């Protein structure tokens, strides 16, 4: 607590904390969580949610992500018809169906993966993006099935497959069926390999657990976003297990590239062009202007 805070009477302190965020009109201003710069939301949006001051990559919703990557014309959503069910009648503090509908109300999505067929700078692709705000982007049956349908659509269209991950891991509420999605998604990539089609895997903040330990690292090219937390076990679990302080920058993209785990770190603002270049190189096609 700073000396100024100590001087302020408790009521004002509480007020200042409680009213600060709401004092800013909703949607007009945004504060960078990394450098605390106050930014026009429209500026941040135009900059693809990358802070113009410090380059911090803020998290991006699934559909916004696909908007950034795909050309505006000729998009078709894949697997939207696949919807979640409560296999286990799972209940912790909350029933799983209630969790699902709460997540639906928050995000407008039915589950944590959105898949679209379209093109990138004119190159036909199928792209999938995780919705982290939907139960932590967790992978259950619907995510697995939509992923597979995306891969199948890519094979039919003889197009590359791209996946942008943002997930806490497997979805506990679907039990072992969730774990099996790790095997299912990884197996689907064998079909893509057999069709000689590229898979580009983009790992964003955070990519953990069952998503990290399945298709995420199986990309022909694996890209990390700057500063993204990527790993199998969460930092807290590791800290509790080894009882050591974790090294600075542990499990961040910059750490992973140093360890040889990913091919490159790409700034979001050039991601679309970068992937396009990689795809045309792999497909032995001429460069896109």
């Amino acid at each position, binding site marked *: 607590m700073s000396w100024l805070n100590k001087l302020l009477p408790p009521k004002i302190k509480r007020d200042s904390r409680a009213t600060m965020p709401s004092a800013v009109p909703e949607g007009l201003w945004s504060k960078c969580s990394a450098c605390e710069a106050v930014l026009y939301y429209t500026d941040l949006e135009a900059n693809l949610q990358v802070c113009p001051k410090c380059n911090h990559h803020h998290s991006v919703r699934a559909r916004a992500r696909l908007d950034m990557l795909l050309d505006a014309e000729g998009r078709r959503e894949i697997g939207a018809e696949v*919807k979640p*069910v409560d296999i*286990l009648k*799972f209940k912790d503090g909350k029933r799983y169906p209630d969790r699902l509908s709460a997540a639906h109300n928050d995000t407008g999505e039915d589950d944590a993966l959105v898949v679209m067929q379209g093109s990138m700078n004119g190159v036909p692709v199928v792209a999938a993006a995780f919705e982290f705000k939907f139960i932590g982007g967790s992978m259950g049956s619907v995510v697995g*099935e939509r992923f597979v349908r995306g891969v199948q659509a890519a094979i039919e269209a003889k197009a590359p497959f791209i996946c942008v991950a943002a997930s806490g891991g497997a979805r506990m509420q679907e039990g072992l069926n969730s774990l099996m999605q790790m*095997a299912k998604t990884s197996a689907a990539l064998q079909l893509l390999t057999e069709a000689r089609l590229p898979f580009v895997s983009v790992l964003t903040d955070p990519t953990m657990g069952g998503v990290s330990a399945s298709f995420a690292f199986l990309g022909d090219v694996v890209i990390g976003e700057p500063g993204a937390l990527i790993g*199998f076990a969460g930092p807290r679990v590791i800290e509790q297990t080894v009882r050591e302080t974790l090294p600075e920058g542990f499990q961040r993209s910059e750490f992973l590239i140093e360890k040889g*785990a990913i091919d490159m770190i790409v700034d979001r603002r050039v991601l679309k062009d970068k992937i396009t270049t990689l795809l045309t190189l792999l497909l032995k096609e001429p460069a896109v202007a």
Partner: protein
Amino acid sequence: MKPTFLDFEQPIAELENKIEELRFVQDDSVLDISEEIARLQKKSQELTKAVYSKLTPSQISQVSRHPQRPYTLDYIANLFTDFEELHGDRSFADDAAIVGGLARFNGQSVMVIGHQKARDTKEKIRRNFGMPRPEGYRKALRLMKLAEKFGVPVITFIDTPGAYPGIGAEERGQSEAIGRNLYEMTRLRVPVICTVIGEGGSGGALAIAVGDVLNMLQYSTYSVISPEGCASILWKTAERASEAAEALGITAGRLKTLGLVDRVVNEPLGGAHRDHGQMMIALKRVLQDELKELATKPIDELLKNRMERLMSYGRFKEESA
């Protein structure tokens, strides 16, 4: 070996202690109390049967981790001959949490791979409590590829709390190692038989459990997350683990009903740890049948079935938006 009893087995433990005492007395007694002993033994058996007929998922989870439960090397010693252990991932180290090697099963060459737990402290540390690091999974994959090269079937035993959550493990690519195995095992051109013999802990278990058949021993468990881990996330306290165990559906019977497991292998009365010999016989019979069955199918058909099965995992509904 003197049995270790779990907390819910205390009534059985008391009876067994009494029998033990009587036996001791009988040695230098003029009275014949063998009838009394026999009576108590029968009672103990009936009690065990009663207790084991209504185990909760959380109790089964305790049995699956019982310190006297047979481990991979016990099965290897009893079910296989000519076991030649092969070590190392050829790039970093040999991980003792996974063992593997060539062996004969009924005379036939096989590659056997499994997680290895241990019973005494020193050995437990050496085996890292059965929690593999990336080099363990990479060794497993290397051995599977070797098996594929020579057309030797692969038999795996799953028994791990999970992949090791450590600094070095992350630095060396724990995620990549697990994902790679899932991918490669999908298309491995030899029969692969997987059996959960104890604890099937999440991705660390799955990384050697993709194959043509998945067996589970009656009191083994297989779960996306440990009940303790699940409870500490969803209930905010690990003490609610028994509720989490119930909710997650981690037992062999439940998973068979859900269609995720092919066969449940019955265990001797009171669990595999009470009678290793009988457990060996039961599992040997199952592996024997499955190997024979898989051998009749051309490899391409096997791979097609394996892929279809992988693609069928998951439950969802379909409705137009």
